[in-house]
C-alpha cells in the first residue's frame, strides 16, 4: 500500500521536475530595498505573464543588503532606494564587479494639509521642527493660532523611514532628531487621507499617488510636488529608485529591466504610488 502511494507520488511529481527545469532554468534574482519590494513584485507578476518561461524572485532586506548580494554575485539585480556609495564601488572594483546603474522609478513624498489651512509652503527645516515637536502651533509658520496635529505613517513603512532620515533628521543620520512622541502614527496612507480631510489643524505625508483634491500639498522649499518636479529632481523630498547589475545584464535580465522601464512597467510604477521616470 505504502509503496503504491509512493510510486504514485513519484509519477505525479515527474512532470513538475521535467517542466520545472525545461521551462525556466534559473530564476532572475532581485534583492534589495524594502521600499521597492512591492514594486518589484508587481513588475515581476506582470513580467511573468508576458514571459512565462522566465521566473522572477523578489526579496527585500534593504538597499544595503541588495548591494552586498550584488557584490557576492548572489543576485542578478540589486534594488536600491539610494545611490551606491563610493565605499561600495571601491569594494566592487576589488572583487572585479562593475556595478551598472538603471534609474527605473522615482519616489516623491508629499506633505499635505487640509485645504482650509492657509499655510502654503514650508521649508524642510520647518518640517523637521514640526515633526520633531519644536514647532507646535500653526502661527509659528504663518498659519492661524491652532495646535498642529502631526500625522506620520507607522514604523513598518518605508516612507516613515525615508521621512525620518531626510526630513526629520535633515539627511544627517547622526542627528538626534526623532519624531516627537505626540506624533500620531497612522496604520496606512488612507488613514492619513481620512484625518487630513476632516481636520484643519492636521499635517501629514504620503506617496504622491495618494494625493487628491481634498488635500492640499504644501510647497517644500518653494517647490510644489508633481510628477514633473519629482522627475526633474527639483522637489526636495524625493529620491531615485534604482537597479544595479554587474556589468551589462544578460539577455534575460535585460528583458526584465526593459519591461520595468517600458510604458507598461511605468504604469505599474504609478499604480504602486511611485513616480514614473518619464
Amino acid at each position: 500500500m505504502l509503496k503504491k502511494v509512493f510510486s504514485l507520488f513519484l509519477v505525479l511529481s515527474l512532470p513538475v521536475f521535467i517542466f520545472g527545469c525545461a521551462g525556466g532554468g534559473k530564476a532572475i534574482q532581485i534583492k534589495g530595498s524594502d521600499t521597492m519590494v512591492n514594486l518589484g513584485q508587481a513588475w515581476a507578476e506582470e513580467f511573468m505573464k508576458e514571459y512565462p518561461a522566465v521566473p522572477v524572485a523578489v526579496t527585500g532586506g534593504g538597499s544595503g543588503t541588495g548591494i552586498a548580494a550584488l557584490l557576492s554575485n548572489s543576485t542578478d539585480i540589486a534594488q536600491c532606494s539610494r545611490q551606491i556609495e563610493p565605499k561600495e564601488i571601491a569594494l566592487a572594483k576589488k572583487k572585479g564587479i562593475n556595478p551598472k546603474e538603471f534609474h527605473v522609478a522615482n519616489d516623491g513624498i508629499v506633505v499635505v494639509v487640509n485645504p482650509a489651512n492657509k499655510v502654503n509652503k514650508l521649508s524642510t527645516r520647518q518640517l523637521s521642527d514640526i515633526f520633531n515637536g519644536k514647532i507646535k502651533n500653526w502661527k509659528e509658520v504663518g498659519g492661524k493660532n491652532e495646535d498642529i496635529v502631526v500625522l506620520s505613517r507607522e514604523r513598518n513603512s518605508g516612507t516613515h523611514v525615508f521621512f525620518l532620515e531626510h526630513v526629520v533628521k535633515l539627511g544627517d543620520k547622526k542627528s538626534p532628531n526623532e519624531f516627537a512622541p505626540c506624533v500620531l502614527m497612522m496604520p496606512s496612507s488612507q488613514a492619513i487621507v481620512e484625518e487630513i480631510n476632516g481636520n484643519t489643524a492636521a499635517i501629514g505625508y504620503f506617496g504622491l499617488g495618494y494625493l487628491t483634491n481634498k488635500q492640499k500639498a504644501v510647497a517644500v522649499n518653494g517647490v510644489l510636488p508633481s510628477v514633473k518636479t519629482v522627475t526633474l529632481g527639483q522637489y526636495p523630498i524625493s529620491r531615485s529608485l534604482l537597479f544595479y547589475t554587474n556589468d551589462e545584464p544578460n539577455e534575460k535580465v535585460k528583458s526584465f529591466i526593459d519591461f520595468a522601464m517600458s510604458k507598461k512597467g511605468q504604469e505599474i510604477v504609478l499604480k504602486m504610488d511611485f513616480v514614473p521616470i518619464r
Partner: protein
Amino acid sequence: MKNLFEFIVEKAIFLSGAASIIFVVLIFIFLLKEGLALFGEVNFFAFLFGQNWYPISDPPQFGILPLIMGSVFVTFGAIVIAVPLGLAAAIYISEVAPHSIRGFLKSGIELLAAIPSIVLGFIGIIFLAPLLKNIFHLGSGLTALAGSIMLAFMALPTIVSIIEDAIVSVPRSYKEGALALGATHWQAIYRVTIPAAASGILAAVMLGIGRVVGETMAVLMITGNAAIMPTSLLQPVRTLTATVAAEMGEAVSGSSHYYSLFAIGIVLFIISFIINIFADIFLHRSKAMKRRKK
C-alpha cells in the same frame, strides 16, 4: 473489541482536551524563547519602566511604559463605559423584560459580538473620531476615548451574558424573601439580587478587561498610536497590541527590535493570565452559589 473502541475514544478525547493546554504551554515557551533574548541587550527595568519607545533609532530605546499606560487607559475607559451599561442591560433582561423582548434582546447583544473589530475601527475613524473632535474641541479625535468607546461595544456582549448568568443563578428564595418583607421590585434587585450576584459581576468585569486588553485592530485604527505617557482619556495613546501589530511586519528578524516585540507579547500574556485567574476565582464563587440553590 468494544473495550478497545472505548479505550481509543477515551484517549482521543483526552488528547483533544490536553491539546489546548499543550498549545498554551508551547506558545508560552516560544514567546519566552524569542522575547527573553532581548534582555541580553536591554536592561529589564529600562524595558518595563522606560518612557521612550524608539525601536528603530540609533541607538534604539525600548521603554514600554507609555505602551502599558496606553493599554491601561483604553481598558479603563472601556470598562467604565461597558460595565454600567452591561449591568443595566443584564438586569433588564433577566429581571424586568417581558419574555418576548428578552429573547430578542439577548440575540441582539450576541450579534454585537459578531461584528468584526475592523468594522468597528472603521466606524470609529469615519464617524466617532470627528464627533469627539467637535464635542471636546480636540486637535484630533483619535484618542484613548475613541478606543474606549469602540472597545466598550466589543466587551459588552461578554459582560452582559455573564452578569445575566450570575443574576439568574441567584436563588429565587432570596428575592422572594425580600419581597415578602415588603421590598419593592427595584429594592429587591439592588439590595438583594445584585449583591448576591457580585462575584459573577466581578468575573464579568475581569473577562471584559481580558477582551479589551487583547484587542488589536480597532485600537490600531482609532487611538492615534502616539507613544506618549497619557494623562487623560482625551489624548492619543499607543497600546501594547497595536505596537506589535504595527511593527512586526518590518522588524528585522533577529534584531533587538524583533525580540522586543516578543517581549511585549510576554507582558501581554502575563496580563491576560492574571486577569483570567481572577475571573476564574470569581466564577467559581458564583458557581458555588448556584450549587447552593439546588
